[in-house]
């Protein structure tokens, strides 16, 4: 069916465009931030993956990288920032503390940010090496390419 072929190709092209031009918002709190800095700088650059523009306004971002421990006090802040982002948006949970609370199982730490916001790619490590971080970005790009792209004129069933 030609209609099906066109929408598939359009899906592919839009996915290709989206995955190679990610504007990310680094929500940095703790130690993993140091590995984020290493990944962003000259040696293990992630600009070559298209992810280079660091925007500090969530309204202009499509990817939020949650880097570091999220405490109970910080949880409403994270939710507010996630809500301020426009669709389509993706979430990268970096570091053991964002996956499950990490080594901190106590009164002050949220045991995994998927208690607060939906997560697309989980990056394990304490802190994850820059190579792991880059691998996660590549996996996220595969996910973006293969997902059903949402665009305005598509009829919602």
């Amino acid at each position, binding site marked *: 069916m030609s209609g099906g072929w066109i929408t598939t190709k359009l899906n592919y092209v839009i996915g290709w465009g989206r995955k190679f031009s990610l504007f990310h918002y680094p929500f940095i709190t703790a130690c993993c931030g140091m590995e984020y800095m290493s990944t962003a700088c000259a040696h293990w650059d992630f600009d070559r993956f298209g992810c280079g523009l660091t925007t500090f306004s969530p309204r202009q971002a499509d990817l939020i990288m949650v880097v570091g421990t999220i405490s*109970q*006090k910080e*949880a*409403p802040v994270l*939710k507010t920032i996630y809500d301020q982002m426009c669709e389509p948006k993706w979430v990268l949970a970096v570091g053991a503390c964002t996956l499950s609370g990490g080594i901190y*199982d*106590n*009164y*002050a730490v*949220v*045991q995994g940010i*998927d*208690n*607060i916001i939906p997560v697309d790619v989980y990056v394990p490590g304490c802190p994850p090496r820059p190579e792991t971080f880059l691998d996660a970005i590549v996996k996220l790009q595969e996910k973006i390419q293969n997902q059903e792209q949402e665009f305005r004129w598509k009829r919602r069933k």
Partner: protein
Amino acid sequence: MEKKKITEILKEKFPEEIKEISALLGDETVIIEREFLQDLCVYLMKTPHSFTMLLDLTCVDYIRDEMRFEMVYHLFSLASNDRLRIKIRLSEKDLRIDSLTPLWKNANWLEREVYDMFGVHFEGHPYLVRLFMYDGFEGHPLRKDYPLRKRQPIIPMRRKE
């Protein structure tokens, strides 16, 4: 002539107020009552001792003792390179002590932290509110009877733990 230890000098000058002195592992410690804290600190800040820096201020919870909380102050003198520890016991029913904010400015935040974590009231503190925990948190986390894993989330969690 060997330099006299600060604890011995203090014991000679204030024999009744200083309950006990010790120098375990090289750390010179004096144990006093809470009413004497302000006078002792004012005396120590002046020359020749000049303990001008308040290094640390914390609290320990001895839950099985009658006088449950022990305030620990660490003072430091840049001139003579001496450290001094002051310990004061407080009971749970009367958990108040004088604030040291008029003397040292970092006592402001240190005392807020102790209030947040243990619940000790500092009289004369200009702004005694919680420092680390959020508004709406009930209880004082570092006390021994607060369970380690008792979480009080502000926003509802999406899944059960």
